[in-house]
């Protein structure tokens, strides 16, 4: 920093700038973004914190992203913010099967996914079509049934806003505000949404103990669930057909929406496959599945026990369903409860 300061001063002097220009120097210095890597628990079982070189986290960018996240002014009718469907108190999900609070008032075809530990996801959306958070942002922002934003109008809104131009300047050290800087700041904020303070995490860190029912439930989880809901993030971040439907209609206007990951890869084995949801924070994220078809965890476990629809792309682990005794089910549910992170949903850093 000292070197940079000296260098800058030299340039300013060399440019023959008068003292009258010196406040600009202070401004530039103040505007240098503060880059950082967030701290996260070893219990997430992640070796590093991936972030794109072009968009490292910085304090100002994250703060700006948070402001944008809660701002309905980005939407076409000025009423729908990101947070409208991603509520902090519901681990950034919305508690609805298929929301219709978007600009068009039409119900979506997808359940609003919970947002946490996204830095480690290399595919966003239920079928993983978005490669990174930066690119993902443009989906909900512009979809007519979600925020329906015209990006050029969003830029006008931001550029004429009383606070945003300075916030962008501070976050990106540039006077030019683009669609990409909007996406990048939102991505930065979302990358900071880390959930690693559940009872399970504390137990793994030897800070607390699980009771005997939870411990037995942990064994049930390990035996029956952990191949897809891999310990750590409690998702393998992969895509599976978990037997929800036997066939996948393809009405042209829906652009392959019922085909799951197949619409992205055009690989036969991806037909009807969706991203494995994390088992963390389940108490806050009902209803479940990509279309929110199951209202509670009992229904989910009923599905895995007796409701599996078999076809050629079904995940092999589910061929015989997951049959648990009543006791095992109770134990499993007790363990799943230990994955709820109350610190995450009340963390002041994530509130409006």
């Amino acid at each position: 920093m000292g070197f940079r300061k000296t260098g800058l001063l030299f340039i300013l002097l060399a440019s023959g700038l008068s003292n009258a220009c010196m406040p600009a120097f202070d401004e530039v210095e103040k505007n240098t973004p503060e880059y950082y890597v967030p701290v996260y628990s070893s219990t997430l079982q992640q070796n590093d914190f991936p972030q794109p070189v072009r968009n490292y986290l910085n304090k100002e960018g994250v703060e700006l992203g948070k402001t944008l996240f809660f701002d309905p002014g980005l939407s076409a009718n000025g009423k729908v913010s990101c947070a409208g469907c991603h509520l902090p108190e519901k681990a950034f999900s919305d508690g609805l099967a298929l929301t219709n609070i978007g600009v068009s008032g039409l119900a979506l075809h997808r359940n609003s996914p919970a947002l946490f530990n996204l830095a480690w996801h290399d595919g966003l959306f239920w079928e993983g079509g978005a490669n990174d958070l930066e690119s993902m942002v443009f989906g909900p922002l512009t979809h007519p049934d979600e925020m329906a934003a015209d990006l050029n109008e969003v830029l006008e809104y931001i550029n004429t806003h009383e606070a945003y131009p300075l916030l962008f300047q501070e976050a990106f050290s540039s006077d030019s505000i683009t669609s990409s800087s909007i996406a990048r700041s939102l991505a930065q904020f979302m990358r900071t949404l880390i959930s690693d303070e559940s009872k399970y995490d504390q137990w793994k860190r030897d800070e607390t103990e699980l009771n005997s029912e939870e411990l037995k439930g942990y064994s049930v989880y390990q035996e029956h669930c952990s191949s897809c809901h891999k310990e750590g993030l409690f998702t393998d971040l992969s895509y599976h057909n978990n037997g929800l439907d036997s066939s996948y209609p393809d009405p042209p206007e829906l652009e392959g929406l019922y085909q799951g990951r197949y619409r992205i890869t055009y690989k036969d084995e991806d037909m009807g496959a969706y991203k494995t949801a994390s088992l963390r924070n389940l108490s806050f994220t009902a209803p479940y599945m990509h279309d929110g078809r199951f209202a509670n965890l009992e229904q989910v476990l009923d599905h895995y026990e007796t409701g599996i629809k078999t076809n050629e792309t079904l995940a092999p682990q589910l061929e015989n369903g997951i049959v648990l005794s009543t006791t095992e089910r109770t134990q499993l549910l007790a363990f799943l409860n230990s994955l709820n992170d109350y610190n995450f949903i009340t963390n002041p850093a994530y509130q409006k």
Partner: protein
Amino acid sequence: MKNLAIILLVVLGFTSCKDDEEEMFTSIQVNLEFAHVLNGEALELDGKAYNLPSGESFTPSKFKYYISNITFENSETGNTYFVADGYYLIDEAGKKEITFEVPAGSYDKLSYYVGIDKERNLSTDQVGDLDPNNDMVWSWKTGYKFLVLEGEWEYESSDRRGLVIHIGNNDPETEVNFKEFSFDLSSEGLTLGSEAMVDLDIEAEISSLFTGDSDLVVHELESTSIMGGPLAISVANNYQKSLFSIK
């Protein structure tokens, strides 16, 4: 005295010209001008109907595509010039001419791609013609639409129905729909080098999407919304053969 000055100027001018032609300018300004036709007729987007190769009627409403990775080459010396960071959106309803500077030299080959290379196609938080506000990105998967043709088709009925062709490629493993187009400028008498400013007129024939290795008959398609998969590959293979010609 005045006459002498003129003579001197002419002589000096002539001499320097004769000594070294290329020293006269350090770069060549190249203007690529794109014109769009369908079945040989100039493209209009205001409700005019055209005949597709299949004989079906088509009323276009949108035609736009990205030109990128432009390269000029001297096939004798192997000298090439690559237009760095050159991603240009050509739109029948918008910009149809692009201009850039090429270092002075002789170039007898031009090549460019329709679409966006793998590296740039992996994310969409970009600027300029790649800004996602250009209506050329998918909302549910990351990547640019390389070429877009939309309109309404009609066959043996008065019902017009939508035809949507969005060619892109979101598969990081391959660049199957990222197509190169090459032109031999010398055979057109258009070798670059002797002038400081060059206009190259390029015509795009939209019929080429529908004919080639696989002839498209719109009313026989399972879906007239072509956004990826084998059908998009067929369309891209079709137009790679004969979309562009230099006029």
